[in-house]
């Protein structure tokens, strides 16, 4: 017992010495080792504990994400184009897939979903083979790497209204939203990732990154249900060029846009069928952008 205490006390003083320059910058104050290791995650009725996730992390994650969680595991160097995307740096606390607004921390559920789902077109597989408890513990361990969780609360998830019925009118309205907010600048008028700005995009670390191609059978990185697609463009993908559109697309219009985006995708869908029936044409990038409904 005393040996334990001594160990913790030593660790604490080391942490305090390391924290000295941080503390004097008056920002990251309350971040000590004990707090780190006590990180918890709450997903549904499950509570995850960082310490319980450490072993699974060492077994399954450390090769890419690294001992320090900075994304510099020994495999990271081998992740070359076309899979540009390097393992996430958990220390920064910046995540693509969030139900929360840009610039806020994701919820525990968001991290759990990302671990469960994996990331299409990347080296991150699905981890749904691990038990729910294991995944929840891993979420807590992932959180322990970033001081942001000691200093900030996760953002509030956006409210997604119930999905309306798909109609031809809604698909047309979605096309107007696509034209108005100019998704085509990067994603291209037919969703082929070939817009005028597509070739110059870089992520926050300056590495080249491609916009999502809706037409080649890829699955969106943050999930491929209608609700996932809604969430992706409303909250944006932090760390990438994809901004949040929550301020500029109303909830009802957002569903219209989801339906329109579905018309680009390969899978058979009611949206695709309806678009064909009404002979829907791609937007004209040279036409003046339609005005926002309710504005001006």
């Amino acid at each position, binding site marked *: 017992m*005393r*040996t334990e*205490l*001594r160990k913790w*006390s*030593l660790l*604490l*003083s080391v942490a*305090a*010495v390391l*924290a*000295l320059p941080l*503390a*004097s*910058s*008056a*920002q*990251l*104050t309350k971040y000590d080792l004990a707090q780190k290791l006590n990180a918890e995650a709450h997903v549904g009725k499950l509570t995850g504990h960082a310490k319980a996730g450490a072993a699974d992390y060492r077994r399954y994650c450390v090769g890419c994400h690294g001992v320090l969680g900075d994304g510099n595991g020994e495999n990271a160097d081998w992740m070359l184009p076309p899979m540009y995307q390097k393992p996430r740096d958990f*220390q*920064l*606390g*910046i995540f693509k897939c969030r139900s929360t607004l*840009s*610039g*806020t921390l994701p919820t525990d559920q968001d991290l759990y979903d990302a671990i469960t789902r994996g990331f299409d077109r990347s080296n991150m597989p699905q981890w749904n083979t691990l038990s729910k408890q294991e995944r929840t513990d891993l979420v807590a361990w992932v959180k322990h790497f970033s*001081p*942001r969780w000691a*200093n*900030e609360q996760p953002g509030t998830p956006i409210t997604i209204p119930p999905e309306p019925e798909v109609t031809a009118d809604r698909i047309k309205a979605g096309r107007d939203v696509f034209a*108005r*907010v*100019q998704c085509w*600048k*990067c994603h291209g008028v037919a969703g082929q990732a070939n817009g*005028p*700005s597509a070739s*110059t*995009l*870089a992520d*926050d670390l300056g590495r080249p990154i491609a916009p999502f191609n809706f037409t080649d059978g890829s699955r969106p990185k943050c999930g491929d249900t209608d609700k996932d697609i809604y969430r992706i463009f409303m909250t*944006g993908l*932090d*760390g*990438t*060029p*994809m*901004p*949040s*559109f929550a*301020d*500029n697309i109303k909830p009802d219009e957002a569903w219209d846009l989801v339906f329109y985006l579905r018309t680009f995708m390969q899978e058979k869908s009611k949206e695709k069928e309806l678009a064909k029936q009404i002979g829907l044409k791609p937007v004209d990038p*040279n036409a*003046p*952008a339609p*005005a*926002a409904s309710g*504005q*001006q």
Partner: protein
Amino acid sequence: MRNQFNLAAVLSVVVLVCCGALLLNRSVSAAGEGKITGTVKLDGTAPHMKGIDMSKDPFCSKAHASDPAHMETVVVGSGGGLENVVLYISDWSGAATVSTTEPVFDQKNCMYTPHVLAMDVNQKFKVQTSDQTAHNIHPNPNPMTGNIPWNQSQPPGAAPVEKSWKAPEMIPVQCNIHPWMHGWFVVVKGPYASTDASGNYTIDDVPPGNYTVTAWQEDLGTQAQKVTVAAGAAGSANFTFKAK
């Protein structure tokens, strides 16, 4: 064993007390109005600023049809005056927020106006768009400072975005849609000023006292000078940056 434990405990207490002392040692200056004025100049030939090819976006290229756009990394005005230099008091120990104005960062003709926006820690600022083309506004601070990156769409007619920053930092900001659009949010503690087209500046609301004034230029770096502001008299500090 016992001794080691005590030693470690004492050490951690000492270190923590030191941290606390550092944090609390911030005196508040007495109120009183003064200012610091001066000019910032470039010594040498103004570097060539590359023209910007905006042909990928017809709105942008049309806006600059008669007035071609150039990079704004080093902007030199009449008499060698340097524009967009931020002057601030780097040893400021007074109140964190002195200004109640809300600086505006405009996306206009596919450029940032101003190219460098200075502000106080926690001061609210506004990002607006005057353009009929879509932008995204994407500052990229270091999250370890406490400033968290965000990325918001700014399609034509978008409402302004109101934000603030928690910590002093020189934050690059960019539009991913128009890769030439690159500017700065310069977040400092206490009073500040930016130089105008002739390189002149005035830092207002400086109480009498001795200060270190720092001049920051995005490409040429920083310079510092000691300045004294006496009651009823303005302090003065001129800076000269050597051309690269």
